[in-house]
């Protein structure tokens, strides 16, 4: 069948382009049905008052009322927003650095590597929000009982202790205490990032390291002049993945609240909430990606 068609089409490229469209066609249909239309509806809902009736939803245009409601009237929304952004601010750098260090270590040859790799990929398999939150409902108090040192127990390190004992600024102390209190969450969020970094490390040609060894470079120099530049692209990928994950995962404070409201059958205010959140998140992600591109990627790719 294809031979006759080959002759009819003006060229093999044009034929291929036509076929390519067929391959992607289901996705385009799905995109329109399950993505574009719902997104437009979601925008409309955020500007309307939505009432659910037995024969579908009734929308009445209210303009910016919903947005005014969440930003000016409801004090909780802005709290959730700042909560989300602070948790994002300390989670992102820690997850990236931690997973890079772990990936580098897991990429080396040592006894027990297979075991540790399997162990560190576990979070990929069972990092369910609900399971983790169940575990931490009781462990906060029980960590000390269970034989974990007091310092590691979540909630044990207070901001005041840090500021008074170490003479730190409040912001730094808050950052550190947040990070320590969430250490389980953070480590458990590193699964896929470690996998991706490992894949990136594997793709660096070993000849580069051999050459640097001949030149007498130290491990430290090796990292900064070979590993880090060669990983800059994958770092961007991992960074984007982590940011998206942090913003949209079901344990993010905002997502949790909005989901609760939506399940309660309220459609208009949650739509406005999620839209404002999405735009804020996109702005933050955009700025970070631009900065990364300008200061790291451009420098190494040039």
């Amino acid at each position, binding site marked *: *069948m294809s031979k006759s068609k*080959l002759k009819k089409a003006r060229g093999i490229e044009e034929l*291929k*382009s036509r*076929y*390519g469209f*067929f*391959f*992607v066609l*289901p996705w*385009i249909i*799905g*995109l329109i049905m*399950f*993505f574009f*239309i*719902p*997104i*437009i*509806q*979601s925008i409309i*809902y955020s500007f309307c008052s939505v009432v659910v009736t037995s*024969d*579908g939803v009734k929308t009445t245009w209210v303009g910016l009322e919903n947005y005014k409601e969440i930003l000016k009237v409801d004090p909780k929304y802005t709290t959730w927003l700042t909560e989300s952004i602070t948790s994002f601010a300390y989670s992102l750098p820690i997850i990236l650095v931690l997973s890079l*260090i772990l990936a580098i*270590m*897991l990429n080396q040859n040592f006894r027990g590597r297979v075991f540790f790799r*399997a*162990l560190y990929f*576990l*979070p990929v*398999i*069972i*990092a369910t929000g*609900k399971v983790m939150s*169940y*575990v931490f*409902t*009781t*462990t*906060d108090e029980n960590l000390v009982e269970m*034989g974990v040192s007091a310092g590691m127990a979540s909630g044990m390190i207070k901001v005041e202790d840090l500021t008074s004992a170490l003479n730190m600024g409040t912001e730094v102390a808050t950052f550190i205490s947040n990070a320590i209190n969430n*250490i*389980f969450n953070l*480590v458990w969020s590193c699964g896929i990032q470690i996998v991706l970094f490992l*894949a990136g490390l*594997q*793709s660096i040609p070993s000849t580069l390291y051999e050459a640097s060894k001949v030149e007498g470079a130290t*491990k430290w120099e090796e990292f900064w002049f070979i590993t880090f530049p060669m990983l800059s*692209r*994958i770092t961007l990928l991992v960074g984007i*993945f982590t940011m998206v994950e942090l913003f949209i995962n*079901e344990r993010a404070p905002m*997502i949790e609240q*909005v989901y609760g409201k939506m399940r309660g059958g309220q*459609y208009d205010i*949650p*739509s406005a909430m999620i839209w404002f959140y*999405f735009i804020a998140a*996109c702005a933050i992600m955009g700025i970070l990606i631009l900065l990364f591109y300008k200061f790291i990627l451009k420098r190494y790719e040039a």
Partner: protein
Amino acid sequence: MKNPLKNISEADRLRALRYAKVGTGVAYSLIRYALLISIGFLIIYPLLYMIVTSIMSTTAFNNSTRVWIPTEIGMKDNFSKAIEALGFVKSFLNTIKLEVVSALLEVVTCAVIGYGFARFDFKGKKIFTGILFLTILVPDMMVLIPRMVNYSNLDFMFIGKGIESLVAWIGGLFGAEWIINITPNIVNTGWTLWLPSLFGVGLRSGVLIYIYIQFFSGLPRELEEAAWVDGAGPFKTFLKIAVPSSSVVFITVLVFSLIWHWNDSLLSGMYLTSDLPLASGLNTVVPYMVQKWGIYFTANTPQGASIVMAACLLFITPMLIFYMFIQRGFIESIDRVGITG
């Protein structure tokens, strides 16, 4: 200042250097093990906690002198209660029917779509690639409600209404009242999950398509071009040439898709009201316990911990077994898929 190493012979100097090197090597591997083990502990800890808590009785859990080893075993009671609260057998079958099928559908369609993106140049490819990344960024939460509304009367703004009036028109032709009165509603059926997967816009399909694109772009073209020259059509080429040499990427994508589907309770919790999968069942364990046995599970009253942990363990065990089987292959395949681009 005089160089203290000046009078040392060349052989001694080399030996000292070698010792120093061995020393840093040992120190380095010690640090590595210390770090790997301590962070590994953070990963294994919740698992151990789950296992230990799930096998001990409530009295043992409340015993403040106990550290790790339970003073009283209440495994049978905990697990039977957990199985009841989860509705385990039914939820498990539901999970297979809804989530696993949906994951498999997604793996197949995303492969076709990813191949299309990687191998062919079609009109608007650049724009569509951009949109693909946009779909990764947009949280499901944004399309959840509109999708729900659309599912409830199959009304994708105008498309669904068109289908409905077509059905009504056909019904009118035959004069059959029951056909006219059909109002398609797929909420609370598996289609709410299968349909998006079937069209490649399911749970995180964007990421999966991206992985496929990266892999297929890296696959050598020669074989496929040869098949083209021999007169095989594009679909035949895809099925007979590209698919057999892509087991690596299929494993990776299957693992991701299965795990994400297994763990997802946002979508199923929204679209389904009965016949819930395990992930949603896990959310209702605590209310069920309170209602049925009056056992609470909060930070201050953690009596129900043993049952809840047993339920968690039941929930993750299938994925753990699955992981044990594919673990080696998965780690290798991750290395070879070339997600890194």
